[in-house]
């Protein structure tokens, strides 16, 4: 097994260095849901939790430009597009395509997290994605996912709006997948015979059973206004429909973030896709918005500088977002490391100062009822302090 360089993060924000600006404090104490009584009892899920996985390494500096950083314009001179960025505070703004997110920020529902990363310090998509899905200490150390393991401890159900079960949800039999399809449904008689035929094949029997259960309990009707069956917004609508039925956790994916070349136009479109998807989620979850939390994360950020082809290469720290009706938003959570050459990791990447797992813990605690002992089971290693995310 290869050795990967990684650092575990403990986060106490440092003071005294003039460059560092603490714009919000990570809580020093862990945020805990009320203790459950009988440990033998299955954990009851609370509210609705959505994880949006952005595959490819989203450029955090394009998503949330640090316009207030003195080194900004030297680094990203073309990043002042014709449309102005949407201001979050005097240091940070949002990419102009993220209009709905901007409104959410003003409503106090959006928490923007910057200079956050997993413990992974190399730059391979596959390894990095593996780590943030498995929640292990090194890529490929575990072959189940953190969400899967968390679900296995309780009675929550998850739906992934993708074809194959994502790694993050492996480890639990309570996760199903769902993709919108143009084809008409086969009838129940056919499925009954299929189940009978699968009696001697435990894997197929179990998966078919799960699929049918998901189909029946979570609602298969396509949203009436589905224009592009595979658009991200439609997938978000599908996720919301499932959450409004029987699902407690939904997993969504949006690819296309690996912007090695000519990234400006591509990212503008990507951010628009993301923004309208998240807006759709909020709209469809409106009755339950106060109990809904959405985490948007990516496997790593990108280089601080552009490369030779007007794109960026794989980097380290980037941006995550948490939004929801009870999220203590309207702010940027970061221990900003700065963008001057000396501040960059290996002279090229935004330096991470917050561990992504600090965002996972409050989700697992609040929405899946995990206590400290269970968290230790689900997320190995020394955990950073959980971020203070709630109103």
């Amino acid at each position: 097994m290869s050795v990967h360089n990684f650092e575990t993060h403990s986060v106490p924000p440092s003071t005294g260095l003039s460059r560092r600006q603490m714009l919000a404090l990570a809580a020093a104490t862990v945020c805990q849901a009320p203790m459950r009584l009988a440990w033998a009892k299955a954990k009851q899920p609370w509210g609705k939790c959505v994880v949006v996985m952005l595959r490819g390494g989203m450029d955090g500096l394009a998503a949330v430009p640090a316009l207030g950083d003195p080194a900004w314009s030297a680094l990203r001179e073309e990043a002042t597009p014709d449309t102005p960025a949407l201001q979050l505070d005097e240091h940070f703004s949002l990419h102009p395509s993220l209009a709905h997110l901007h409104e959410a920020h003003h409503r106090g529902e959006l928490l923007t997290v910057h200079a956050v990363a997993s413990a992974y310090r190399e730059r391979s998509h596959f390894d990095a994605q593996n780590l943030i899905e498995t929640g292990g200490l090194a890529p490929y150390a575990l072959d189940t996912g953190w969400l899967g393991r968390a679900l296995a401890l309780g009675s929550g159900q998850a739906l992934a709006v993708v074809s194959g079960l994502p790694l993050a949800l492996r480890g639990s039999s309570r996760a199903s997948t769902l993709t919108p399809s143009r084809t008409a449904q086969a009838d129940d008689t056919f499925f009954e015979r299929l189940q009978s035929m699968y009696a001697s094949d435990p894997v197929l029997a179990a998966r078919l059973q799960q699929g049918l259960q998901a189909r029946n309990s979570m609602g298969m009707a396509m949203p009436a206004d589905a224009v592009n069956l595979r658009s991200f917004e439609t997938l978000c609508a599908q996720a919301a429909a499932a959450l409004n039925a029987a699902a407690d956790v939904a997993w969504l994916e949006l690819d296309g973030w690996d912007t090695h070349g000519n990234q400006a136009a591509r990212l503008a479109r990507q951010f628009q896709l993301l923004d309208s998807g998240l807006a759709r989620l909020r709209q469809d979850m409106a009755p339950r918005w106060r109990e809904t939390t959405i985490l948007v994360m990516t496997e790593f950020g990108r280089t601080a500088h552009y490369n030779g082809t007007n794109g960026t290469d794989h980097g380290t720290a980037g941006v995550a977002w948490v939004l929801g009706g009870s999220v203590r938003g309207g702010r940027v959570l970061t221990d900003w490391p700065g963008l001057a050459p000396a501040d960059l990791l290996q002279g090229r990447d935004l330096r991470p100062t917050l561990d992504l797992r600090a965002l996972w813990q409050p989700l697992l605690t609040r929405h899946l009822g995990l206590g400290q002992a269970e968290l230790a089971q689900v997320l190995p290693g020394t955990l950073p302090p959980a971020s203070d995310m709630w109103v």
Partner: protein
Amino acid sequence: MNMQTFTAAHRLGLAEPDLRAVDADPLGWVLAQLDTPDLLDSGGMLGSAQAMRQTRQVLQAARTQDADAAQARRQLRQASLSALTRRWTHQAQTRTPVYERYVMVWANHFTVAATKGTTQALVLPFELEAIRPHALGRFQDLLRAVVTHPAMLLYLDNAQSIGPHSRAGLRRSKGLNENLARELLELHTLGVGAGYTQADVSALAALLTGWTVARDGDGNTQFVAAMHEPGDKWVLGQRYAEGPQALDAVLAALVRHPATAQHVATRLVRDWVDPTAPAHLVQPVARAFQDTGGDLRATAHALITQALSGQALAPRARRPEELLLAWHRVSGVPVRDSGASVAALTAMGQPWGRTPSPAGWPFGNDDWLGPDALLKRAQWAHETGRRFGATVDARALAQAAWGQALHPGTARELNRAESPAQALALLLASPEFTWC
């Protein structure tokens, strides 16, 4: 009928309509296919030169909001689908399906995807021009053909990578793109954790500058000295002087590196034979690769011999494309509406030519048999049953193609089916069709 027959026909090949042909000598049946492979006649199929000319027109038309944009797109799509129909037809009818599987494995190892504007019609031309000529040849020749094919140079951005100190770089202050260098090391040869560093990636990227694609005409590969980073590059402890000859030298070094044999063998085993890549399969393959300096026929030989040596193999799910091909091979129904087939593959989780990453289609059974994917397969089976139930006898098919390996449950349900259409649908969704 023994397990070897079944493995030979279904796991090493693409499914056989009649196992008796294989049963006499499964190992011989397989190995003979490497000796005299049935080659695809690509005459008339869309090649990369034509594909790139038409792609350029499509992209241009889209940029200028041309009225002909839709027309150009349609024509290109038609040409691509027609080529795909030819390829699938060949694979459905070929008497050397094992060779075809090997081709598919190499095409997956060196994935290019249609997910960029410039590569939208290049996936199959790439397979025809870079993979097929070398699939049973030397790994080094395959590697070179792949790395210098326009599809790969475009897909992994090398076509636009410029040495910062090259004449073009100094003029335009543009620079390196490391994508191809990284994937060349991580996916194609050494594999992650083999000990290469970021410095190696950057140096290799510098070495690869200059290899680009002509912007007009046939879009051929060219080495443009003005884009090439001057000076020596040090990759994995070896020095390479500037210039185009460095490519062959570095590829030779990568092929020789012991980690390459291991990495390539592991991927081969996982993709083709056993997703768990047990050592008893991987080691002989790695040894054969290393000892022969990357002779791909010898490598396949070693894998096949081990696979048919009688040791149990872990289950392997058929990917949607393999499912489709198995259906056509076993039934003899000709491949026709490729557009509909592509849509079906997409619904089942394998959008043709659009692999999610340069790592290619995933190897794990769980990646293909999620609960929803199973429902999608069942739906495809249901529709296919409706279309062909009247002309295809599912029970006879099952008997000929699986014989005694047919599960009692499958046989029972086929017999109890309420219509030929339902019987066929059940067969296509059966464990026999799902696993290989």
